[in-house]
């Protein structure tokens, strides 16, 4: 490097390093900081926020979204996307009452019916996730178009199951999943935390987690390195399907009805927004599950804040959109 220029190069480098550190810090902790700011704002200005009711209300509303978004994080980490989650929620939600109402086969014990009503819909949703995986791995279809098929058809399948209408649910042992409060904490919140913890553990401490991130980083490099790309890719779509099924069960339990027309509507968008705000790049290569949790809570809290301060739904949509964009732009900034 020519000696005469070295002074300016060094000075510029230090400035760039400082900016680099700042932007890096923002990217790593931006969602957390924003969330903290929002919480403080609400604690100060929103009446009634400083209560378990407000806390639980928000956590209960965000739980299904986090569960779905966790699966979405894993899918996006491999460089893919899953648009079918909302429809899979609807299918699972439509299937559950059919199972425990024993309209399909005679079940002599209520407990068996309820247990099956938990297990079968999740398995079926996972099966549809397997179908997504099949299209994406064996047919080499783009995830967006492959999952678009179930996005379109899945809701129709759910509607066929309920013959177009909705099914009222009045089954306390099933609805415990959403209405129960073991040790005072809503069960779905506990489920949400378990799902998040297991996923974080998987990503950080298991080989599968490493494989997922590797595939998203560079599919061909992972392939050459011996990563079982097909199996792992298939796996994340199955997981995404199962988690969507679980979220569907929680939803129908809490609203006491299975309406395939509305269940899981727009859930894929909420999930993708949570993932984006949480810092996982849409191109894959990273799986920031905790970030997704924070992102979902952040978006939920924004809606809550705006709602409790009287902002109409439409304006809240615009604000939401701008904030998501800001979060994504922050991720894009290269120092």
């Amino acid at each position, binding site marked *: 490097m020519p000696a005469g220029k070295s002074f300016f190069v060094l000075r510029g480098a230090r400035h760039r390093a400082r900016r680099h550190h700042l932007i890096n810090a923002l990217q790593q902790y931006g969602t957390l900081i924003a969330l903290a700011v929002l919480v403080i704002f609400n604690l100060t200005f929103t009446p009634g926020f400083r209560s378990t009711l407000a806390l639980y209300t928000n956590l209960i509303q965000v739980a299904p979204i986090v569960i779905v978004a966790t699966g979405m994080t894993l899918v996006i980490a491999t460089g893919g*996307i899953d648009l079918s989650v909302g429809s899979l929620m609807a299918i699972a939600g439509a299937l559950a009452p059919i199972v425990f109402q024993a309209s399909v086969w005679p079940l002599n014990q209520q407990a068996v019916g309820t247990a099956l009503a938990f297990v079968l819909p999740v398995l079926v949703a996972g099966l549809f996730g397997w179908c997504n995986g099949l*299209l994406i791995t064996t*047919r*080499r*279809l*783009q995830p*967006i*178009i*492959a999952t*678009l*098929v*179930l*996005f*379109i*058809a*899945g*809701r*129709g*399948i759910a*509607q*066929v199951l309920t*013959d*177009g209408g909705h099914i009222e649910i009045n089954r306390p042992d099933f609805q415990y999943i959403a209405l129960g409060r073991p040790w005072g904490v809503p069960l779905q919140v506990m489920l949400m935390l378990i799902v998040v913890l297991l996923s974080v553990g998987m990503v950080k401490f298991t080989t599968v987690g490493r494989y997922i991130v590797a595939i998203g980083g560079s599919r061909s490099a992972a392939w050459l390195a011996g990563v079982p790309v097909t199996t792992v890719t298939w796996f994340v779509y199955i997981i995404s399907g199962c988690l969507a099924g679980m979220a569907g069960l929680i939803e129908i339990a809490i609203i006491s009805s299975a309406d*395939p027309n509305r269940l899981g509507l727009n859930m894929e*968008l909420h999930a*993708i*927004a949570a993932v*984006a705000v949480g810092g996982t790049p*849409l*191109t894959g290569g990273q799986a920031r599950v905790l970030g997704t949790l924070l992102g979902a809570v952040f978006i939920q809290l924004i809606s809550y804040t705006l709602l409790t301060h009287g902002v*109409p*739904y*439409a*304006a*809240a*949509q*615009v604000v*939401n*959109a*701008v904030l*998501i*964009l800001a979060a*994504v*732009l922050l991720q*894009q900034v290269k120092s």
Partner: protein
Amino acid sequence: MPTDLPSSDPSLKMVGIRLFRENVVLVVFLALTLLAAFRYEGFLGHHNVTEFLRYNARFGFIALGMTFVIITGGIDLSVGSVVALASVLAALCSPYGLLPTLVIPVLAGSLVGAINGSVVALAGVPSFIATLVSMMAARGVALILANDQSIPVDLQSTVITIGEANIFGWIPAPVILLILVYVCGWFVLNQAPIGRQVVAVGDDEAAARLMGVSVHGIKFWVYVASGGLAGWAGVLLAASTFSGLPTEGVGWELQVIAAVVIGGTLLTGGSGSVGGTLVGVLLLGLIFKILDFENGVGGYDLKAHWQSVIRGAFLLVVIVFQSRRAVKDR
């Protein structure tokens, strides 16, 4: 040595097979039309055909813009919300004359497109999330402008006349415009240098940049075009439903994407067909029409929800078929 060729003129048969394989979608469309004409009384009736074309013209406009966006390797999820926003604006402007009613919604759509384009081209945000965001925002703005209700279009407004008009007594005016726009689109994509640049950007962005193509510019303008065309579709919607509905257009973006994909444009970008998109739009519209007829006139009573399943299954068949072709060509 070609010992396995048929004894009759081999080249004609092979040309025929090749033509079929390259134009499967068109063949399917024609075949389905013929089948429907036989099955349903009056399927090809004058009123039926004109109203079918008039209705699907709006999707056609959006699909053209979407084709260019997808060829650059992007996607535009905001078109549905832009349609809603444009229809609300058209309804709001309708008492003030024809020009504002036509121009302002298209400008608004182009503005949304410009925002999309800036975010995608300049900030480098993936188009999926960028247009997802503008989809939410545009819907919100539409709801705000319409105050959460549907705005009636001034029934005296000329825009309704244009929407309902039939040139030469039978071709709906929007369809004439659609054909004109598609011819322009075909020309731009296939004959004009800018069309080549669009394909280059979608095929290999880095290589295009090295070749001197203004990648940012191309990406910006395709989103502007997509938004503007969606705005125009919103005007048509308002003209035909006599109201600006802020809740309309939901799901339109995915329908249009499906039409574009069915038409042969690859979602990965770098390859696409304007004519194919038109056939794709018509084919999807035809399927709906057939389902409608089957419901009313045919033997089966197909409930509305079966339609989603059929649409999904159809999309599945098309994309699997296309993937097999793509694998073979590789």
